[in-house]
């Protein structure tokens, strides 16, 4: 069987990340180049980051998954905006 094209690998993994109950992440960017898979985007906590990497490894066995995800920060100052 012919090797799945990288474009379809990207589409399939993005669907899996959105639909797999361990992740349900809709905003993860996936890039595939040869056997390298790069994941970028933001998740809410370290646990969800691990879940995204796990689902990616399961869906693309034999690939090297690179975790370039970031964990969201919500500790900014709550300065108010005045709307006249």
């Amino acid at each position, binding site marked *: 069987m012919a090797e799945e094209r990288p474009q379809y690998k990207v589409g399939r993994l993005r669907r899996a990340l959105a639909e797999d*109950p361990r992740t*349900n992440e*809709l*905003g993860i960017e996936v890039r595939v180049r040869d056997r390298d898979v790069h994941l970028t985007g*933001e998740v*809410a*906590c370290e*646990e969800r980051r691990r879940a995204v990497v796990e689902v990616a490894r399961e869906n693309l066995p034999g690939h090297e998954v690179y975790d370039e995800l970031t964990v*969201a*920060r*919500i*500790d*900014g*100052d*709550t*300065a*108010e*905006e*005045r*709307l*006249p």
Partner: protein
Amino acid sequence: MITIAAVGDVHLDEAMRGQYRERLAGLPDEADALLLAGDLTKHGTVDEGRVVAEEFRDLGVPVIAVLGNHDHHSDAQKEITELMRGEGITVLEGEGTVVDCPGGRLGVAGVKGFGGGFAGKCATEFGERETKDFVRHGREAAEALGEALRGLDADLLVGLTHYAPVKETLTGEPPEIFPFLGNYLLAEALDDSGAALGVHGHAHAGTECGVTAGGVRVRNVALPVLRRPYALYRLDGAGGG
């Protein structure tokens, strides 16, 4: 003056219990009400709904919410709504509520909203049944928002949605998915009802500030956009858009 705190897309589950609530202690000193712009849960389960209800109860300010698409994922939106209402949180879907604040009466109407796209580049109720159902759901949500806003007797009107009424606040998201992120009919509802502000979530990679064609300010308060526990908007109670 009326000060509104707002946030959306907190996506709480059991693992995040308590982490967000600890950031809300200052609310009574800062705001007259807290608006929640949907996607309060991760998977829309009853258990996650219970976490949401317990995280946002007894905060010392009225809490007014709409649900988002994640909160519908497990078909438990009714149970989640009831759990939240049981803890004193107002959950709106095509309804409005008025809060008496020291600076005037704040009227908030809310709907989840839906996709459909933006004027000139939107889907229409034509063709397959599935397409018509999709587009109709967006139109009916916007109609419900307009009706709820017009039914409010208040000094300041705010429209609360999960989906975006304008595309400016989607800046940063891929344009190809805009039709799944918002619907311009929501903006028309804000414009036609004299709202002073539209608040939404949903677009994690979007931008905080936008404005409708009629000049109503729109704010995307999705937590990943804000990068702070909540936004604070201070408005005068004269209303108008």
